[in-house]
């Protein structure tokens, strides 16, 4: 393809990852094609399909307490998942190239233990491990752990930075003559490392924060940012531009931090069929019970006795702010304003509760024929809106099949996707430099 001045990155490739399992009501479990969400075989199938599609990475999420709503365990969505590093170690044995990303938080782990487990995965996978760093200051989650709700909200990025520095020091301190010492306001440890350096130096660092503090943290420490900006091009470009500026401000080259927004693909033979399918997907995701549950989150009470095909509640929400738990995507928002807007829209468009909730669901991801979606993905990466995408399949385990069988070939035809793995480590797949701490060390020796 000739260089064109209006395409800033004319040779950029699309990088793909798969995020499994989706949280909230993403995963349609009621479909006859939906397999076990627990069996190892399901995870193996998704990981091997992604590897057949030459994906960069397979991601596992983390949730250290089962979600609740109105004080009761939430029962409508897929729930229950394996410990991430343990599951990825098993998957390492049945895959050869794909990266293996474990989401692990810095509040309810110990740096000495987590550094060792991640490094062990990195050794056993031949340099394919990554850590998706998440923070939490949630005392409710802390009820499952020795330290309880010990971390103040204002300290969570301090803790994250100190924790990550400690982990890096342990990874880098394998053959040091002295034990590794790491100190800060939130930790004070001394550890003798037990795991050698790996084929990729050390595991790749991912991070998913979106607040200004979260973006700065990523710019300072992470190598991949797993963003939520995976639907609208302008929004994604604005995010990418901001993150690159922060990366440069942190003293790094602007391409040092790869951007992989989470997203969803709905593919069909034609664009019109894909739009129909996307509507169907949303209806499957928002079951009648889920519609009432999502409504109940805004109203702050159990509305499961309402008729999902009837009108919205006439009374106002009983809460002022949507609470800190418990997996609600609208936490911290003002329920009275949302309720007012929802009622106005339902009245104007003659919508029932479920129709309204479906209509309010944010359009997410890419919908179209493989050719249409491929063109759009190429436009994104070649204009710098992202470096690729992290796909959440809405059907498991078969939800990646059409992506791998139809979309990947369309990307390859456009010269925007690898036709074979050219490296063996995740760092190589992503086109990343050596770990940040190694570069500092190398520069100091010059």
């Amino acid at each position, binding site marked *: 393809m000739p260089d064109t001045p209006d395409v800033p990155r004319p040779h950029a490739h699309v990088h793909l990852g798969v995020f499994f399992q989706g949280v909230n009501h993403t995963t349609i479990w009621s479909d006859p094609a939906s397999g076990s969400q627990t069996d190892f075989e399901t995870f193996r199938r998704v990981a091997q399909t992604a590897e057949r599609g030459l994906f960069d990475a397979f991601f596992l999420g983390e949730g250290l307490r*089962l979600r609740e709503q109105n004080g009761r365990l939430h029962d409508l969505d897929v729930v229950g*998942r394996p410990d991430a590093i343990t599951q990825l170690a098993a998957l390492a*044995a049945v895959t050869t190239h794909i990266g293996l990303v474990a989401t692990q938080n810095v509040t*309810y782990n110990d740096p000495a233990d987590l550094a060792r487990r991640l490094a062990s995965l990195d050794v056993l996978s031949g340099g394919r491990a990554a850590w998706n760093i998440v923070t939490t200051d949630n005392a409710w989650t802390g009820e499952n752990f020795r330290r309880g709700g*010990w971390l103040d909200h204002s300290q969570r990025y301090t803790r994250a930075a100190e924790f990550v520095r400690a982990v890096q020091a342990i990874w880098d301190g394998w053959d040091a003559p002295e034990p590794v010492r790491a100190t800060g306001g939130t930790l004070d440890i001394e550890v003798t490392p*037990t795991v050698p350096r790996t084929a990729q130096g050390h595991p790749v660092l991912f991070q998913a924060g979106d607040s200004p503090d979260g973006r700065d943290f990523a710019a300072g420490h992470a190598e991949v940012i797993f963003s939520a900006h995976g639907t609208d091009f302008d929004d994604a470009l604005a995010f990418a531009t901001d993150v690159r500026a922060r990366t440069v401000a942190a003293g790094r080259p602007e391409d040092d931090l790869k951007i992989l927004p989470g997203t969803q693909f709905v593919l069909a033979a034609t664009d019109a069929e894909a739009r129909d399918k996307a509507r169907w997907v949303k209806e499957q995701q928002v079951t009648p019970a889920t519609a009432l549950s999502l409504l109940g989150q805004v109203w702050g009470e159990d509305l499961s006795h309402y008729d999902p095909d009837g009108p919205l509640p006439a009374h106002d929400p009983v809460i002022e702010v949507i609470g800190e738990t418990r997996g609600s995507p609208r936490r911290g928002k003002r329920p009275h304003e949302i309720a007012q807007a929802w009622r106005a829209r339902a009245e104007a468009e003659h919508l029932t509760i479920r129709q309204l909730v479906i209509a309010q669901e944010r359009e997410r991801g890419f919908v179209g024929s493989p050719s249409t979606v491929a063109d759009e993905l190429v436009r994104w990466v070649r204009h710098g809106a992202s470096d690729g995408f992290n796909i959440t399949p809405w059907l498991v385990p078969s939800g990646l099949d059409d992506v791998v069988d139809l979309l990947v070939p369309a990307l390859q035809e456009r010269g925007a996707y690898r036709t074979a793995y050219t490296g063996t480590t995740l760092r190589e797949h992503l086109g990343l430099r050596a770990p940040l701490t190694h570069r500092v060390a190398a520069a100091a020796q010059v």
Partner: protein
Amino acid sequence: MSTSSVLHVGLEVDGAGAHPAAWRAAARSSSDALGPARLRDVVAAAENAGVTFVTFDDSLVPPAAGPAGRLDAVTRAAYVAPLTSRIGLVPLVHPAVTEPFHVASQLAALDHASLGRGGWFVGAGDVPGARRALDRPVAAGADLLDETADVVTVVRDLWDSWEDDAVVRDSATGRYVDRDRLHYVDFASGGEGLPAGPSSRGTADGVRAPFTVKGPSIVPRSPQGQLVVVGRAGTVPGGLLDVALVATTDAAARAREDGAPLVVVDLAVTLDAAGRLGADRRAELDGLAGVPVPATWTGSAVDLVDVLLGLRGVVDGVRLLPSELDVDLPVLVRDVLPALRVARAVPTPRPGATLRDTLGLPRPTNRHVAAAATV
């Protein structure tokens, strides 16, 4: 429980071998010694020979006399899970070191990935250096016994916090799970000190920090329901164990009285191998160690077979600790286990069988189901 005439054979597969100097004698670079190829070869050889289970020794901090390099045991066991089909995988996890909630999740995930062949070798003994590594109080001495009992209890509680049929996928009501089949554990440990946290830094060494666990587990109930819990007799209450490990057969009766369903004796061996007598190999390894090393059994494969046949009816199994895996394992695989198979002295694990099946242990009914049934 009466002891059958079958003898289960377990095998310790950590590092270069159970002798503290094994790594000094091994002709391997540390990356080869720790890498995936060796791990899969060793476990495959054990499985092919009919070994009932392998254990993976571990420690967060390196042992004083051992090699510096060692990968996390649960991660190693999980790696070989999909590469094997019959052998039990029993990693060591220390109850005072790893978070109890993480212990339960990691081991349940191992049981899922291995289709029911997971076990837990409950770590015992003080862990010098753990407190500094973890920045929190770590129980030691007499407190460690109480701590271990509490942690094994809460891990077992968490393994039962999902009933087997909790996932109902009921389209009519939109419910993926029946929440009445999920249970909070609401566990509170004993302990006198301050809860773990920055304020507990002043706590004296070895004092127990109390903890609580709310539950339920984040992992659905695993294929075995409860993994096979293996522990040294005297370090875990017998009633919490499935398999008690004893150092000598003299301790077997006591372990059985304490309530352990199965008793397995540890046997460290240095075999005649590669044209050298076990006793000579052993003396040479001791010389390399630089620290006192407990005695091991030395001798020929034929003599070891006789010893093992004599253990039938005395204990339910033996856990072999080869001095050097590279040297002793080939002899065990080629000369010892076949002779036991010919004598019908060892069980033949079937593909697809859980570790409980192979050991003859029943699959425990979930306590919440059992409680409901008795009402």
